[in-house]
């Protein structure tokens, strides 16, 4: 595995601007419990809030360095610059997220951000499809906010296994053009996967943003790639992906992601925290991404 590929990851995909990151000792201002284990947690972290852009993430220090040891990465979900707050949308799945759910207003933890590269915003308005599977909804409220603010038309396609895992309507910004709901068990919206009917939608938008489990993203990518190849769409596709993170700022080399040199060709190793978490879909090696174990813990 010796190859002269390290520099080319950033040449290929660019890299995050670390100089904007601040490690802020933030105060929890609310924990809104939603369905099941889902919740939204908000922090007063004015310096982070002022710099945060859609698709970027923060590293939350749940414990002062013991258990859990590492920070936990979460995408900015909603940001209120005037109040100086950032909100994260998450599920209590493991030790870190479960501890976050038990925070009380007034409790303080360190929030490091913004980190990573976010979604690219259109230079001139058009129509965007925002496609989220399950928790993948997290980064989209902030993105919508900024898109709508720029006059973009937003189509919101939210899928999940069942209605209990959908992103709650009341947290969405106003001004969304159309909302499409899909649940696998049909408990809300149309039954089925988000990928159904996707080719048609792709034809009518300039931009597609997707976030969700890797298999979903891979399916979206394949569908998009064939539509592009067939000339049915010229939309761009950006995806937000996940990798286990040690640092979030490029020094641990732990968040390796397989990049594509050209199309699906195996390319260099990139870093999710610096080349991502948002990448143009064609820059990823999807076969290798899918080969990674689902269980990261």
């Amino acid at each position: 595995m010796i190859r002269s590929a390290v520099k080319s990851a950033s040449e290929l995909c660019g890299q995050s601007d670390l100089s904007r990151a601040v490690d802020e000792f933030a105060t929890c201002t609310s924990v809104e419990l939603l369905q099941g284990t889902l919740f939204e947690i908000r922090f007063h972290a004015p310096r982070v809030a002022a710099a945060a852009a859609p698709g970027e993430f923060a590293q939350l220090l749940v414990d002062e360095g013991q258990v859990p040891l590492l920070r936990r990465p979460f995408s900015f979900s909603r940001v209120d610059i005037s109040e100086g707050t950032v909100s994260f949308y998450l599920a209590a799945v493991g030790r870190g997220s479960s501890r976050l759910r038990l925070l009380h207003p007034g409790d303080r933890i360190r929030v490091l951000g913004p980190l990573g590269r976010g979604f690219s915003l259109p230079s001139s308005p058009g129509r965007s499809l925002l496609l989220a599977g399950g928790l993948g909804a997290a980064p989209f409220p902030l993105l919508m906010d900024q898109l709508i603010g720029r006059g973009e038309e937003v189509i919101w396609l939210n899928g999940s296994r069942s209605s209990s895992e959908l992103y709650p309507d009341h947290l969405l910004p106003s001004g969304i053009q159309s909302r499409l709901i899909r649940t696998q068990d049909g408990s809300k919206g149309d039954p089925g996967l988000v990928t159904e009917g996707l080719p048609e939608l792709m034809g009518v938008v300039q931009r597609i943003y997707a976030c969700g489990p890797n298999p979903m993203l891979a399916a979206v990518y394949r569908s998009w790639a064939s539509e592009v190849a067939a000339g049915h769409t010229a939309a761009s596709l950006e995806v937000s992906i996940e990798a286990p993170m040690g640092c979030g700022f490029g020094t641990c080399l732990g968040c390796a992601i397989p990049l594509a040199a050209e199309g699906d060709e195996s390319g260099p190793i990139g870093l999710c925290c610096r080349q991502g978490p948002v990448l143009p879909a064609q820059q990823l090696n999807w076969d290798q991404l899918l080969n990674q174990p689902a269980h990261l813990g």
Partner: protein
Amino acid sequence: MTMDPAVSLGRGLVLPNPVGVASGTFGYGFEAERMGPIAHLGAVYSKGTTLLPREGNRPPRISETSAGMLNSIGLQNPGVEVVARDYAPRWREWSVPVVVNVAGAGITEYVEVCERLSDVAGVAGLELNISCPNISHGMDFGTDPKRAKALVEAVRRVTELPLIVKLTPNVTDITEVGRAVEDGGADAISAVNTYLGMKISVKERKPVLPGMGTAGLSGPAIKPLALAAVAKLRRAVELPLIGIGGIGSTEDALEYLVAGADAIQIGTANFYRPGVSAEVLSGLIQFATDNSLQSWRDLRWSD
């Protein structure tokens, strides 16, 4: 503080203070430089560097454990040429000494890498990583006193740079290897590298990390072990010792100084607390002042 916080590691390598950042946890220093000031550091120990560029292991590469983390990065690095040509000139501008951590598959590679770095301005010293658990044979030198000594002798012949040897703790008696590298001509010893560990995914019924599943454990979990290793080494060798393992606070750093370390390196803590080194340094200086230390050595335990 009236005391001089500087620490000498031999062969002219004088660190402005004892607080360094450990190899593989600070890259080549450029990320941290973008995120905040680094001028306070006693030393930067670079990511392990090999002769040719290495892409490292396939993901996943890290996994968290109780108060620790496992890593299996596989020495991803751009190769010595890039380091010597592109990075060292940038280090020349820094006041912080940069020690390049060197890895290799055999004596020849170590020698070639060290030779290449020898007259490069900006490189303050070399740290031989004879203890990386994540590449095949990465630990052979570190577990065999004879081979360790031979390696140090070979490198010693091609460089006048200060030579630090970084030991693995995965041995029955670390003092044997410590004495061997002292005999071989090392200027200082750093201890320790990561401990061999494993994490299993019950769901998949196999290790989380690829290959044989073993990886290197670091973080607070290993501090008591590494501290015992440093204390043992202190009784066995005369060389300056750099204590490493689970340091995340001033108190941790002080424990190592009491155990016999001359300097310390902060590793994993840089990941979850990027500001940690500055805090530890100011904590140490406060402690020295409060306790009217004349030298860090005053702290040393002598039973």
